[in-house]
């Protein structure tokens, strides 16, 4: 990841006039959503891959590629010549020529920079927060909200705008067998055995809360014979027995791609089967634990779709700001959609502590919005995208809203045909 930091500092030309604080500008994303994704993504991916600098795309070159008959840039031009040309253009132009900023540089010890305003979080507090916390301790339950230090904890637990409190319960203990570079959850080769009363406790706790939508997630348990899938499935089933109308989302590990484990969980009665790919295909090895990989995660999502009853949604999430390029994000989105995944969410990676992977860049809310529009265009059922969005952030609201819109569309169609 130090690679990425030095990549960026090398770009600034030595004798440049004082530019505003370093931003990555591109209107490629903007153009992609407006003019037709495939054509644009292909031609611009070509340009981007041939450009010597990754971080700056100056406007004249983009305008060329927006031309209906794009000319591929001269392949024979030496890298030094192209770089000099780009520097000249940078000096000549002002940065804001109708493009929006893609991202903002992250401060380091040597070069402290303020965090962007949209990254501020509210400190958790309030009556509902205290009540939920007390209940969790009483029943000896863990939430990933606390374990992973989620920035939305205050908002979700206190109910946010709509007053519906959401919490994501973490089962199978609070210690994971894997060590992913972005995750704050404790790691151990031999975590303590899962509590056999946990499925009953969890089901009872959730039932007594009066929540309409719940997300249940777990740590990885590579140490258990069934990797925890039985425990997981039992929790979901018990909850369904106590509260048949409750909407249940399960955010599951990859079970090392084991078909029987995935089947067990997918058929347990949940409404949304979620498994996070976390990052783009190219950075899987770099960001996630070495036991996780893109193909395995995609297989899990495909298998879940096969086994789960029709109408079950599959969902995945991606963290941006780990060092990926927009190209990689778009190509990963295409692969995910091709695998039949219904929902995708995007959030900004935040470094839990110094022990974890540094943040590569802060992606702007505008860029997040563009990814959302792109996702909708690609055909995802719904896309949640924003710096503070996490896999289960407002999951209930989004799901219900999407279902209502679907129902409206269907009833609208029926009405039309009957006229």
């Amino acid at each position, binding site marked *: 990841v*130090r690679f990425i930091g030095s*990549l960026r500092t090398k770009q600034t030309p030595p004798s440049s006039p004082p530019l505003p604080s370093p931003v990555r500008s591109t209107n490629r994303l903007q153009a992609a959503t407006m003019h037709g994704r495939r054509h644009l993504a292909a031609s611009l991916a070509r340009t981007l891959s041939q450009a010597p600098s990754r971080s700056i795309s100056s406007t004249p070159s983009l305008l060329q590629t927006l031309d209906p008959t794009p000319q591929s840039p001269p392949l024979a031009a030496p890298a030094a010549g192209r770089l000099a040309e780009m520097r000249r253009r940078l000096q000549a132009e002002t940065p804001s020529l109708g493009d929006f900023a893609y991202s903002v540089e992250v401060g380091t010890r040597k070069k402290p920079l303020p965090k962007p305003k949209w990254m501020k979080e509210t400190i958790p507090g309030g009556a509902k927060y205290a009540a939920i916390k007390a209940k969790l301790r009483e029943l000896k339950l863990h939430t990933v909200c606390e374990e992973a230090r989620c920035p939305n904890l205050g908002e979700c637990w206190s109910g946010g705008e709509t007053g519906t409190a959401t919490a994501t319960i973490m089962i199978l203990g609070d210690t994971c067998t894997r060590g992913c570079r972005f995750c704050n959850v404790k790691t151990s*080769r031999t975590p303590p055995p899962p509590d056999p009363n946990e499925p009953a406790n969890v089901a009872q706790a959730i039932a007594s809360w009066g929540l309409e939508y719940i997300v249940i997630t777990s740590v990885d348990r590579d140490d258990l014979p069934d990797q925890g899938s039985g425990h997981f499935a039992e929790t979901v089933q018990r909850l369904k027995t106590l509260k048949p109308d409750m909407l249940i989302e399960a955010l599951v590990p990859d079970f090392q791609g084991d078909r029987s484990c995935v089947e067990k969980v997918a058929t347990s009665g949940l409404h949304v089967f979620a498994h996070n790919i976390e990052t783009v295909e190219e950075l899987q090895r770099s960001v996630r634990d070495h036991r996780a990989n893109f193909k395995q995660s995609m297989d899990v999502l495909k298998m879940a779709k096969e086994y789960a009853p029709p109408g079950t949604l599959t969902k995945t999430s991606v963290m941006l700001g780990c060092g990926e390029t927009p190209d990689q994000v778009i190509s990963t989105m295409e692969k995910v959609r091709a695998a039949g995944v219904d929902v995708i969410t995007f959030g900004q990676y935040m470094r839990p502590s110094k022990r974890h992977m540094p943040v590569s860049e802060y992606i702007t809310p505008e860029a997040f919005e563009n990814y959302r529009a792109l996702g909708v265009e690609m055909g995802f059922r719904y896309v949640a995208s924003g710096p503070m969005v996490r896999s289960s952030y407002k999951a209930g609201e989004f799901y219900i809203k999407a279902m209502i819109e679907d129902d409206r569309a269907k009833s609208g169609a029926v009405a039309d045909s009957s006229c």
Partner: protein
Amino acid sequence: MCRISVTFVNKDGTEKTISVPVGMSMLEAAHENDIELEGACEGSLACSTCHVIVMDVKDYNKLEDPTDEENDMLDLAFGLTETSRLGCQVIAKPELDGVRLALPAATRNFAVDGFVPKPH
């Protein structure tokens, strides 16, 4: 003596010398002194992010042999050398006074499935 001196050398050559009490792991020592050494799995031998390179082979030989678990994780580390160890497994002892540890250029191998990073 109950503290030894350890020098961490960054990939750009800058150094930081710290004082480490005997019995503490290099990973803990680095964190206490704000050195950029990741420890994603908190020293449970589940990752390779605390990979350090022992610069002097004499110091390397003073360390106990790595266990099989450590070797398994080391195999995954970026920029592996003959004198690489995981920082969480190197425990400070009086014989290691003055040891120099180099931090690797990156924490993970970027080359996945034949992917070649674009030259910059």
